[in-house]
């Protein structure tokens, strides 16, 4: 038996395939999932490829079982992932909370489609941004990333797994119906090179308590089967992992779960600033939608309008400093009734405008351009 790894070269992939291959390159060796449009091709690629590299794929009975299985697998030290779309995320949210509370690194892909409910299964939506942040019950911080090209879908998977492992937190990897099914050329570097990008989780030392944090507020993780006699519970717990149902234990634990992310937000933030330096109008955008926004910004510049684009690659924790630093007016272009608009308003000291479509298709560059003209008064 020999493992079959990706070779250096150019590939023509859909976003789903790039997400799967990016995950495998980033060290993912365990996938449990349940098919759902437009993410099903991730499962198909994982079923084909994981056993080729000694990994394991299982198609579970539903999304709840899928996420429970990857949380269990992650405790054995595997980099574990599942992929789904909005309806599946809705089912997974309780266990996303379990992973937050018990600090288990996992990557959950959500290929967003038109929603609520069954919505537009095959078409793009961006309605799950707040759900990524607030989907499970309780007050917690989470990490969410969102690429905008097939190359970036591959590359950003390294960040997704590295951040999950570094901070012992679920990472919601957002895709959308456009990215999931769009094909583009992807460059895959030699294996030696990509393997250098992998950051492994901190492993607990012998005798260390399972929830005793280091100075960075993240407890090194013990693994199953190594004599740690781990106990983990979704109940409020102490450093030993034992239930401690007091306001004091709750205060200590929940503050740390939030602060371990917020204290490192600048390391987690990733944005693309395109022609923003001298801009009078900045369009905030993300995912598939940002492709049209960039084209519109270029057109606006040709017309003499000082437009720019701020593309959020990290959605959560929200990269607020990039809003605060500009004195331009903002347009938030998104495929929902207005979600990130409210976050931008929270931090902008200037005017913030909406540009919304309810999903199904992205804005055309001309629609974005029209809004830029209106806002700039030209």
């Amino acid at each position: 038996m020999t493992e079959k790894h990706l070779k250096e070269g150019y590939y023509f992939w859909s976003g789903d395939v790039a997400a799967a291959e990016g995950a495998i390159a980033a060290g993912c060796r365990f996938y449990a999932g349940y098919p759902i449009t437009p993410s099903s091709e991730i499962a198909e690629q994982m079923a084909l490829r994981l056993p080729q590299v000694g990994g394991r794929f299982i198609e579970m009975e539903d999304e709840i079982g899928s996420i429970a299985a990857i949380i269990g697998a992650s405790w054995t030290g595997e980099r574990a992932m599942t992929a789904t779309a909005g309806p599946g995320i809705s089912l997974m949210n309780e266990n996303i909370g379990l992973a937050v509370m018990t600090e288990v690194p996992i990557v959950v892909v959500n290929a967003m489609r038109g929603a609520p409910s069954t919505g537009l299964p095959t078409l793009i939506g961006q309605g799950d941004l707040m759900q990524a942040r607030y989907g499970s019950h309780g007050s917690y911080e989470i990490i969410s990333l969102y690429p905008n090209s097939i190359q970036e879908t591959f590359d950003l998977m390294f960040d997704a797994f590295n951040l999950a492992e570094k901070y012992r937190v679920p990472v919601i990897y957002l895709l959308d119906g456009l990215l999931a099914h769009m094909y583009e050329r992807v460059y895959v570097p030699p294996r030696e090179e990509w393997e250098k990008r992998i950051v492994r989780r901190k492993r607990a030392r012998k005798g260390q308590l399972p929830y005793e944090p280091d100075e960075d507020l993240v407890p090194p993780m013990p693994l199953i089967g190594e004599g740690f006699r781990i106990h983990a519970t979704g109940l409020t717990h102490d450093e030993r992992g034992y239930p401690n149902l007091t306001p004091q234990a709750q205060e200590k634990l929940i503050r740390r779960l939030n602060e371990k992310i917020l204290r490192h937000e600048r390391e987690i933030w990733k944005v693309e600033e395109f022609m923003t330096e001298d801009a009078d109008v900045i369009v905030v955008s993300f995912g598939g939608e940002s492709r049209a926004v960039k084209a519109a910004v270029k057109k606006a510049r040709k017309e003499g309008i000082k437009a720019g684009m701020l593309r959020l690659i990290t959605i959560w924790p929200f990269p607020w400093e990039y809003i605060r630093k500009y004195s331009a007016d903002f347009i938030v272009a998104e495929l929902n009734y207005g979600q990130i608009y409210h976050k931008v308003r929270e931090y902008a000291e200037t005017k913030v405008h909406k540009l919304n479509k309810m999903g199904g298709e992205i804005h055309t560059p001309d629609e974005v351009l029209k809004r830029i003209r209106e806002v700039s008064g030209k």
Partner: protein
Amino acid sequence: MSIMEDLRREEEKLLRTERLPHVWCPGCGIGIVLNAFLRSVLRRNMDPNKLVVVSGIGCTGRAAGYVNVDSFHTTHGRAIPFAVGIKFARPDLNVVVFSGDGDLFAIGGNHFINAARRNHDLLIIAVNNFTYGMTGGQHGPTTPTGAYTTTTPYGNPDRPFNIPHLAISLGAPYVARWTTYHVNQLQNSIHKALGMKGFRVIEIISQCPTVYGRRNYMRSPLSMMEYFQKNSIVKNDATFEEMELTYNGKIVVGEFRSVEDIPTYEERYEDIIRRAQNEGGD
């Protein structure tokens, strides 16, 4: 030092004694089941560092909190898929799901059915106390028809699962039922199942005098145990009808199925890895 004293010392090594006293009510049967499990583990001479216990939510779900091995108290109904993830990722570990009837068969029923169908290599210890104890005694998927609970004040119109029959119909290689009265049989059964492979199911009828018995003419722990003693019949070749549980009726117990050598999901997947790596070029 007596033999029992030695056994107690050995057992205590498998308990997180600093967490005692436990949350279970006086007279509860879950401790009897946990005791039988720990003694079976000792008899098997199992490496505690390679043993994993996974529980869901509820009274029995608290068992994971007391065993001194890698142990996980998960979300309601999800102990089985959580355990599937552990076992599939690390097939060398012994993974035991220790949970209650509501957790495993109502909210977690779909996971039970599908994990049994796939024949994951898991031992399922299913404590059936006829009720949702932790929430105060509502009726559940195993409450006998006619029984009184806080949500069946006029008697239960619902009908209960026939758990052994369900497990057998799904091809589970080992299926047994005992009550907390049958401590030795239960211990032997767990001991045997720990030495087998595949999806092994042991249902244990257990007393909940606090919220179930007192509403159903069995106010004390002893009266529930007497019911188990007087009404249990051992019948290993029981039929579907015989395995059905009725309100304060007969309880047919026994080892209903014990089959070796059915390949587990984990074993079948090893073959998938071989095929994926041997087939074609690269």
